């Protein structure tokens, strides 16, 4: 009888601790998001988007240069990274399906997805910054593209593998070449999945800081020229938050607010699309 009670109590304690663990996870999420919202909202104003930074220590000004730079760098990274990722994923899921080469690329991409992004920054610095003698927006975009390629490649592969093989056979039986089968049947069937994968990859790289620190660097002036050093929101947050001025801290919170809210909304929407599309 005593043993029975002890087992019951032991079980209840363990389950209670698990519930506490889940609550602690939620606690941190709420704590962080609430804090970013609280500080971010008070620092938001129109000047933030329309004005360039004031000289250090002078209050006022905005982060127009960083918003535009961030957008440019992320867009160029998308233009470079997405086609390579989608095509590579197509090759290993279609033409090379089941081969050792496909397995190797797939496994290595999986590893590359989690490789430290700051190492990517040092690599791009060595090949695109050092030879030219100055930081540039191009280098930053290339670093982000480097991070995007394996992510997009792996989602494309997974999504293409979800398309039933019989669908391809039906198209083959009509005399279509493999290229047309891929283009008109497979891509169409997997479009939602690939697209959401791409959006998630963009959301992910748009929050990256480490690979931009020594590739696109920073720039306190507005520029559209990608061959110059370019400001980005994330690097600006790093510099401003570490800086000595209260005004800088407020701007850093505002930028953090925009990035966090943007990424969380995009992630939530795409996740629910995936769930709606593939779970039913």
């Amino acid at each position: 009888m005593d043993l029975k009670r002890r087992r019951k109590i032991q079980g209840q304690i363990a389950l209670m601790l698990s519930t506490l663990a889940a609550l602690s996870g939620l606690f941190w999420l709420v704590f962080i998001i609430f804090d970013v919202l609280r500080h971010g909202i008070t620092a938001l104003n129109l000047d933030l988007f329309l004005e360039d930074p004031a000289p250090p220590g002078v209050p006022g000004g905005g982060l127009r240069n960083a918003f535009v730079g961030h957008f440019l760098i992320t867009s160029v990274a998308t233009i470079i990274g997405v086609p390579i990722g989608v095509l590579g994923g197509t090759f290993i899921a279609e033409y090379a399906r089941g081969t050792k080469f496909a397995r190797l690329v797939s496994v290595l991409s999986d590893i590359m997805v989690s490789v430290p992004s700051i190492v990517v920054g040092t690599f791009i610095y060595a090949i695109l910054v050092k030879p030219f003698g100055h930081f540039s927006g191009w280098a930053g975009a290339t670093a982000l593209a480097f991070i995007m390629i394996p992510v997009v490649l792996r989602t494309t592969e997974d999504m293409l593998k979800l398309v039933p093989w019989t669908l391809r056979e039906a198209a083959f039986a009509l005399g279509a070449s493999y290229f047309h089968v891929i283009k008109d049947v497979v891509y169409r069937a997997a479009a939602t999945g690939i697209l959401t994968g791409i959006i998630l990859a963009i959301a992910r790289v748009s929050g990256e800081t480490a690979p931009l620190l020594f590739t696109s660097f920073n720039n306190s002036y507005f520029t559209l020229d990608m061959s110059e050093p370019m400001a980005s929101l994330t690097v600006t947050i790093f510099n401003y938050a570490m800086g000595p001025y209260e005004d800088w801290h407020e701007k850093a919170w505002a930028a953090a607010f925009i990035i966090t809210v943007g990424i969380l909304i995009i992630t939530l929407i795409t996740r629910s699309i995936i769930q709606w599309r593939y779970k039913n």
Partner: protein
Amino acid sequence: MRRFLNLPAVDLIFALVSFSAAFTVLILILSTILVLYNESSLAIHRFGLLNFIFTVDWDPVKEVFGAAASLYGTLITTVLALSIAIPVSIGIAIFLTEISPHLLRTPIGIAIEMLAAIPSIIYGMWGLFTLAPIMADYIEPALQKVFGDIPLIGKLFEGTPMGVDLLTASIILSIMITPFIASISRDAFNLTPDLVKESAYALGATKWEVIRDVVIPYSKLGVYGGIVLALGRALGETMAVAFVLGNKHQITISLLDAAATITVTLANEFTEADTDIYLSSLFYLALILFVLSFTVLAVAKFFLLRAEKHYQR
């Protein structure tokens, strides 16, 4: 190769183009290793491998560089973060698979995964402005009061609590990696066949006994995979720790002291390196980090692949 030769021309072109895209991944990995090795060759020749790893000094003025302090910081923050994150995330996984009402499973699961979507710079900034003051004002003095007088353990909590130290960095890191372990463990737990669980219940096991003796042993490969993956992530995490570690090259026993990790050193000093040997030593650090995390992640992938095979049987 043979399967490509009798393809129509349009296919051949598309296959070639997409092949080069897939091949890019291999080129990127190889060239990363080669370029980093080439850039660090100066430091490799000057300091060697073992000497570099075991030298504590990091002195740009005297041009003496060693990785020991950075490696030590990386090791301590990673180990501490993992030892906090592992029990918490396995608890979360147990809650999500066995305890939570069905209605709450998806929303709580998504909420935990949202933690993984928050960019690391946000964690870092939040750590600097919110967590560090809380640590310095309340938690660290409390820890000192409780553990300070105990011999040996007291040494871990010596010094003035500033909030910018190994302990704060490890806590932020642990919050960051919790969702990785939790979601992989949850997926692994979910794969335990109901039949096996029901058999244990039929023998009179309590819920906790079923989890401890059936679910966790059954899914341990997946859980290991998740833990090693989180380890790989923690090794290379930069921005979350860059704000709250202080970048001080020293080996300190106290957890309430500033330190440096490989990533923090790179983030803070890369653009300031003014001599060739300084820059080369930083590249050497990056090379070591790349090899280290690549190996760890490969082990994680190995576990996860083994787990996948195990469940298919």
